[in-house]
């Protein structure tokens, strides 16, 4: 197992380098004036341009730029925005909010999705099963921002159950509705995946054997069936955490959450390259690490998978 982890980590490196380099190039090396619009209506004074170019190594070729940048990152220096704010600080302020939002979303989608999937998977064809299928279909089809809007209008403005936007501290309870919106698509997938997995495993030979052994029905369901059926679901939930932590630009935008997604979005629009690359590098690391953890988790859950 240890060798597998090592091998995976080694494989991660080129992927990490590739992705971050790609982003770096897209943000910094595309022709165009990176300072356009920064000085208002008039073109920037030469001294400003020289200073900025020097500060951000724009005279070097792109590979050198990239290495210098990554070198700085490795030592914890995320650089500064054009207006002098420390990017590292900005990130440390906003990232926890996004993480909280992602965790809430995954928790909600796991609970509702699993319950719906287990019940409909066990029951088989019937009213409940059709209900779950239809509602998940809708959740998959309706784009997140529509769900977000609708809920915001209904719950925030019409019925006034919640505040339409989230405060700047963004504590857990405020994040419930946004978390639901963020996780709505995945919730649909979780319930469908669970349902299919249970329905398939229900008919398997080892369940027949457990029956033949005279095991009580509830034990067959909760111990034998679930333990097998939930493997793909749990791995899906794991990868979902990884992607949700990658920022929820839309949800954060609708509910006014000061998370990392908004930070990057604003950064892109205002051409704050440092912010964009800094955040994306962080997100890529998180994504890759989470994926590795999920693969290892898969080996723990399913003894047939043993890496060596």
């Amino acid at each position, binding site marked *: 197992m240890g060798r597998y982890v090592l091998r995976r980590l080694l494989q991660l490196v080129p992927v990490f380098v590739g992705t971050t380099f790609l982003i770096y190039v*897209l943000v910094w090396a595309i022709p165009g004036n990176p300072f356009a619009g920064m000085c208002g209506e008039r073109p920037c004074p030469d001294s400003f341009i020289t200073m900025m170019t020097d500060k951000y190594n724009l005279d070097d070729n792109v590979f050198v730029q990239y290495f210098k940048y990554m070198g700085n990152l490795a030592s914890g220096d995320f650089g500064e925005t054009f207006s002098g704010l420390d990017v590292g600080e900005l990130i440390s302020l906003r990232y926890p909010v996004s993480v909280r939002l992602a965790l809430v979303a995954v928790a909600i989608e796991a609970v509702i999705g699993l319950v719906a999937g287990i019940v409909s998977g066990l029951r088989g064809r019937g009213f409940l099963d059709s209900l779950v299928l239809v509602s998940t279909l809708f959740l998959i089809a309706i784009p997140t*921002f*529509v769900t977000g809007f609708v809920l915001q*209008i209904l719950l925030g*403005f019409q019925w006034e159950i919640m505040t339409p936007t989230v405060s700047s501290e963004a504590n857990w309870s405020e994040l419930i509705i946004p978390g639901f919106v963020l996780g709505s698509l995945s919730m649909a997938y979780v319930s469908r995946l669970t349902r299919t997995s249970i329905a398939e495993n229900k008919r398997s030979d080892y369940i027949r054997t457990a029956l033949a052994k005279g095991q009580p029905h509830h034990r067959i369901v909760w111990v034998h069936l679930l333990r097998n059926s939930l493997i793909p679901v749990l791995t899906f939930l794991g990868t979902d955490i990884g992607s949700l932590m990658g920022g929820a630009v839309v949800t954060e935008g609708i509910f006014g959450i000061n998370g990392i997604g908004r930070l990057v979005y604003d950064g892109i629009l205002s051409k704050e390259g440092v912010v964009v690359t800094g955040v994306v590098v962080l997100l890529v690391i998180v994504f890759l690490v989470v994926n590795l953890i999920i693969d290892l988790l898969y080996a723990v859950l399913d003894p047939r998978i043993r890496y060596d």
Partner: protein
Amino acid sequence: MTDPSAAAAGTATRDVESYVVAPEHLEDVKPGRPRGLWSDAWRDLRRRPLFIVAGAVIVLLVVIAVFPGLFTNADPNLTDLARSRKPPSSGAWFGYDLQGRDVYARVIYGTRWSLLVGIGSAVFTVLIGSVLGILAGFAGGWVDGLLSRVGEVFFGLPFVLGAIVILTIFRNAGVNGALPIVGVVVVSLAVLSWPVAMRIMRSAAISAKQQDYVKAARALGARPARIVFRHLLPNCLAPVLVYATIALGAFIGAEATLSFLGIGLRDPAVSWGVMISDSRNFIRVAPHMLLFPAGFLTVTVLAFVMLGDAVREALDPKLR
């Protein structure tokens, strides 16, 4: 051993045909008609209500996209500020938007762009992903390693952020005109999504490669190209097809999201996403500006997802 009497054999065999049928032969199959996965799937699909409904909706949408004039006489770009934000009425079924344009007409004309993005992205994603996937799966070795790493690089880019970056670049490069704008969005979506298609194709190719019929073909001396096209491809198509159908719906939704963020389609290629984006600040006072394009959007994505579901069930040999 007993000796069969010839006469008995004669009378017995005459009745054989009517009774000697195992369950799988009970269906009405004309003699000589080959029954493959695809013809079986098509026969199955034809009978499913899910498929019929979804198919009908999609056909209707395509007609609307190609011949919008059949469905409305109004000009989608005609502004009249006096009518700004007026709610639905008998003259304008969906009301008017901020600039007094007929929402119904815009929704109708917008069908074309939304569908184009969906179809274009799906086609490109599947093309790139399938080619690379079969290559990786069939060739194996370092080719597979390289392609998989490249796929992971693109896969690692957060989707929304990557799309925003790419589209912003194109926008700053001054891309204008309806088709180029659509093209740019299509390219962005395809660039970010092809790894998924590649993965599907690759694993299908790998498992197909290990099947005995491929080994047999190899043993008979078939060249790699022939093996790929004749043997691998038809059997790997099924999962990719299912993915493509569902992805089509997802891409249409993604375009709407990108337009909502302001970086997707824009004038003159007005899609439902653009309309929804425009309605953002007026949701409370003029909800019809949001509802109708959102409704069309939802129905369209729903139709494709339903289609994908139906296709998946029809193609799944385990459910036969």
